[in-house]
């Protein structure tokens, strides 16, 4: 599969600059440093055309920041994002606009991502009209077509976002993203706020649209069950780093990294008997002050001295399967886990 998008060693740091008092204190010899948060730390991924890549992780792991960088909403501090072999950051003029249009984003909360003062036809139709994708006269018909594709009745086109239910608003968000004929869609927790029965409808819509329009998704979610369902491959992030990557079936059946193992074990499943919940210990550390070595070692049941000292690199443990864990170097240790 030829990659449509390549993420090459991308990092994002958010730095809180020093204020006047702190700068003065520093000038006078105190050891105040600007506060830096490593939201994304050297992540490399490539996504093939037509593929669905699921990106999972808990809050604060940097998955949304990575998604926003891919969608061009924020720029990487280091590394490059290449869309169709062109570095997005270095594009200018028409080429940059073209790339920006081809990558669209669907957000988590449609109520805060849809303008409450615009009618649906304006929300969906504005971008294609402005960018000259459809002539002004045909905009209405075009909007109707997109709306019905997304499972909305075109007769709702004159309504405002607040007149819709949550599931319908999610569909409007999808329709808006599709209106500029993108090739690549970043879905950031797009179904997280929906009820189960509505979530199933929207997931089915995503899958149908992918077939019909040959779309590529970066599907970001904290819910491994949802991600597994829709994705071809899954990438797992923990505290800014990629810890495991593999095909959906393989990763779910044989999680390699202890963190992935814990995540897979804790997907809520239907039980007919009472389940004994056993939790991995500890909290997700603050990204402001991440533990040294492997970020997961304070919570890891298999941690050993090396994990505290040395950062594990993401390497191929089986064909197409990557994991960042020192246990893999010790052969038998990992399979026993």
């Amino acid at each position: 599969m030829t990659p449509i998008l390549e993420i090459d060693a991308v990092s994002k740091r958010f730095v809180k600059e020093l204020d006047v008092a702190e700068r003065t204190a520093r000038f006078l010899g105190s050891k105040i440093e600007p506060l830096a948060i490593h939201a994304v730390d050297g992540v490399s991924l490539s996504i093939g055309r037509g593929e669905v890549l699921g990106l999972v992780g808990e809050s604060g792991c940097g998955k949304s920041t990575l998604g926003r960088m891919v969608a061009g909403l924020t720029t990487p501090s280091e590394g490059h994002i290449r869309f169709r072999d062109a570095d997005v950051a270095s594009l200018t003029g028409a080429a940059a606009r073209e790339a920006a249009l081809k990558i669209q984003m669907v957000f988590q909360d449609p109520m805060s991502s849809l303008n409450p003062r615009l009618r649906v036809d304006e929300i969906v139709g504005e971008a294609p009209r402005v960018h000259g994708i459809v002539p002004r006269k045909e905009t209405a018909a075009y909007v109707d077509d997109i709306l019905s594709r997304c499972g909305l009745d075109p007769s709702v086109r004159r309504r405002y976002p607040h007149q819709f239910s949550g599931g319908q608003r999610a569909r409007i968000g999808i329709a808006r993203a599709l209106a500029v004929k993108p090739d690549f869609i970043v879905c950031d927790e797009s179904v997280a706020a929906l009820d189960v029965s509505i979530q199933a409808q929207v997931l089915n819509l995503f899958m149908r649209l992918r077939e019909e329009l040959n779309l590529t998704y970066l599907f970001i979610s904290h819910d491994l069950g949802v991600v597994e369902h829709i994705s071809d491959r899954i990438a797992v992030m923990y505290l800014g780093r990629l810890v495991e990557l593999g095909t959906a079936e393989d990763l779910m059946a044989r999680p390699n990294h202890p963190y992935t193992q814990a995540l897979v074990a804790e997907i809520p499943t239907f039980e007919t008997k009472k389940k004994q919940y056993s939790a991995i210990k500890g909290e997700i550390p603050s990204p402001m002050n991440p533990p040294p070595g492997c970020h997961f070692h304070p919570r890891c049941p298999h941690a050993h001295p090396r994990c505290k000292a040395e950062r594990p690199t993401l390497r191929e443990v089986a064909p197409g399967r990557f994991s960042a864990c020192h246990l893999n170097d010790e052969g038998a240790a990992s399979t026993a886990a």
Partner: protein
Amino acid sequence: MTLLQVEDLATHFFTRDGVAKAVDGVSFSLDRGEILGLVGESGSGKSVTGFSLLGLVDPPGRIVSGKIVFDGEDLVKGGEPMMRTLRGKRIAMIFQDPMMTLNPVLRIDTQMVETVLAHERISRKSALERCREALARVGIASPDERLKSYPHQFSGGMRQRVAIAIALLHEPDLIIADEPTTALDVTIQAQILSEVQKLCADTGLAMIWITHDLAVVSGLADQLAVMYAGKIIETGETGRVIEAPLHPYTKGLIASVPQGQKHGALLAQIPGTTPSLLNLPEGCSFRPRCPRADAACQEEPPLGALLPGRAARCFHPHLDERREALAS
């Protein structure tokens, strides 16, 4: 032994646009040490049911009829004075967002001691000792230090633990938990679930676990009650409801959760959306979305006992498959 008996409870909201029957004839009972999973989607009335039990319904809503018999006494008749003596003491509640439960400008010790002293006349020192024990019981490390912290200094999971610790201070008989793990990450959710499981087993605490997530509650609850549009549409022992749901809505709900075996396939979906409580369809409120609906469904179906210990509010329950399975 029955601890709580709810009979035909109805809580309505009298709004400008009409009467919203958020809870409309809900009945269930709960034994000591039992966990009841109250499941439903947004707007199904599950949270309002929980609030009604604690007398926390604000105008324009009020309990219009029904009985809530807690340990032999009717809470609806007893009204606010009786509620004040029970709330926080014998019945406690855990909310979805612990940041809303905890006062952001007070230290944890202040808030906890206040809760203890509200119901008991003991010295501040022994109250503090009780708080320390409660924090330790929910798995908070170095409770002495943590008592002196403010809520914003805790992570989400820790805050929920503190909220649970506050609920436990008076060793209540019943805890009502309203979506307590929805805002938490999966690994933290599992920690809270294992903590709750231990507590219920150790102390004989009864619990009503209100959630939209059937999967989470399936491994935890003894009994399930599924709500739709203000009514309980199916009840029964958890394992059997999950295994063979009777009501088409429960069946649809279970089928629409993505689970391993269905990878890549289209999910079974329930068409349509949850109806507005102000504008419910005639008869069975699930009728417009139901694949089995016919003319009979224009009448309101009763919550009928269809199997031993199982009830569903449906004229066309999924019983035939069961018979076939039994015959073969």
